[in-house]
């Protein structure tokens, strides 16, 4: 495989999304969970994931702010609900 082809592969939209997903997942699973409190790590992961994959430079300012707000709201809800359900309903000691 030539260098040009490799470069093309890494610039492809699908490759960027694939590597982005793997990098974020590894950052959350190995870098955050167990090192900082679980709700905080989950909030950071969900927020970053949604913002990174939904953010677009072409979007007008108001839309960008709305996307960031929704990502934040979603991250708070997901981390809060998952933490409470597993901690108090399933009695799991959170990592």
């Amino acid at each position, binding site marked *: 495989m030539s260098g040009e082809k490799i470069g093309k592969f890494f610039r492809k939209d*699908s490759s960027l999304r694939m590597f982005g997903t793997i990098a974020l997942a590894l950052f959350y*699973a190995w870098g955050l*969970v167990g090192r900082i409190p679980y709700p905080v790590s989950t909030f950071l992961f969900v927020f970053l994931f*949604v913002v990174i994959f*939904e953010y677009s430079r072409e979007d007008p300012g108001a839309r960008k702010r709305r996307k960031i707000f929704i990502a934040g709201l979603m991250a708070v809800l997901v981390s809060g609900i998952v933490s409470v359900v*597993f901690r108090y309903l399933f009695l799991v000691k959170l990592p």
Partner: protein
Amino acid sequence: MNGFLMFLDGLKQYMNFWSIFNVLWATQLGIIVGMLPGLTATMGIALLTTLTFKMPAADAVLILICMYVGAIYGGSRSAILLNIPGTPANAATAMDGHPLARAGFAGSAIGIGTTGSFLGSIIGLIFLAVFTPLIGNFALNFQSFEFFALAIFGVVISGNLTAPKDPLKGWISGFLGLFVAMIGMEGIHAYVRFAFGSVDLSGGIDLIPAMVGVFGFSEIISVMKNQKLEVVQTEINRVIPKVKDVAKHWKTIIRSGVIGTFIGAIPGVGEDIAAWVSYDFAKNASKEPEKYGKGSYEGLISAETANNAACGGTIIPVLSLAIPGSAPAAVLLAAMFIHNVRPGPLIMIESPEFVYQTVAMVFMATIGMYILGLSMVKWLVKVLTVPREKLMPIVFVLCVIGAYAIHSRIFEIGVMVVFGLIGFIMKEMDYPVAPMVLGIILGDILDKNLRRALVLSEGDMLPLITRPISLVIVLLTVLTLVSKMPWFRSMMRRIKQGLKGIVKKSA
């Protein structure tokens, strides 16, 4: 008769508010999980196992079976509306379901598909009730050599059927699973193998985190990598099908139900192969084969009947032999072990009522699936419009906490991630992952039984081919292996031509 009474007893046990509530939410969740591309039945059951492991066994297994039946059915919804099967089991459904939706018959396609799934599930559960005790009683003749041979056969046939184009890839995947199962403390003398000094690895690789990785994390990467999906913009007309529209396919329904159950019962093969084989049979037997692939109700009903019939079929070897028929059934088996239910040949002696209780659970799930499948159709279509960028991080959060929750070990999260990456690479390279999962489950059975057999026979391997049942299994394994080899195929062709020549001459 005794079995029927035990089935009624099992059913009576679930005729209370909480059980019905559990059936409804778990089946509905299953339908949603099945609908969403990227969330599979296996992943749904694996994640629910982690949520239900503190519940009593009867409730937990009921919930998992509802998730299983619901998810296998739910996949048809996205197959029809998106042309993307929600679970691999619904790939054949998309062939005719989607053209029907494009032609404006989405409602009737969903209705016919749901009825096919319902009838298939009923046929599957009848076979489950009849054959589990028979196989269970027969399996009482199985000893260590037979179980060892059966484990090898399971991996080989699973490899054959899940990678029909290149079975070598299926076998490699299966044996990779067997090697993974060898990691950690072995079951007879507690000797630690392949742990390389790691305390975590000495406990072995747990099935649930590995499966959450293979069927969860790897799917997340695939979904994020692929193009966005477009839902067909179509008016959903009448969903509840007319009796005559279903009744005219009665032959296809019975044929597909039997094929689905039979293929489901073969270790590690699963609902997807069942649906494809049934679809092919239906096409060959059809009066209108030219309609297949262009919007044939017969094709749709053949695929949907078979994949749900396979659910019952996959549970037959789970209960009678403790060997799963498919990947979701493998998690179900693992969940049963977690809940101290011990399926296997002794189940018909130790707790025959559990077999019929399971039949009652499949029955409850089937009824729940049919009612929920025909209602809230328009509302549920909205679920398909949830963007993957918002759904996938939630799924990954559940994968992480699900892998962690059973043993509360961070190590399990690592296992989940590593197996997710392995599963993704395997899928990208066209290696089936189901044989690997089967290998992880069968590895322990294979290892323990081979060593036990060798202790009993004082190191002699001959009983493997001198004991009749074991010999039959060994011959089947060899036949499965050589049947895919070019020299065997050309030899069979020559024999066929030779026989034709003899027949012509004698005529």
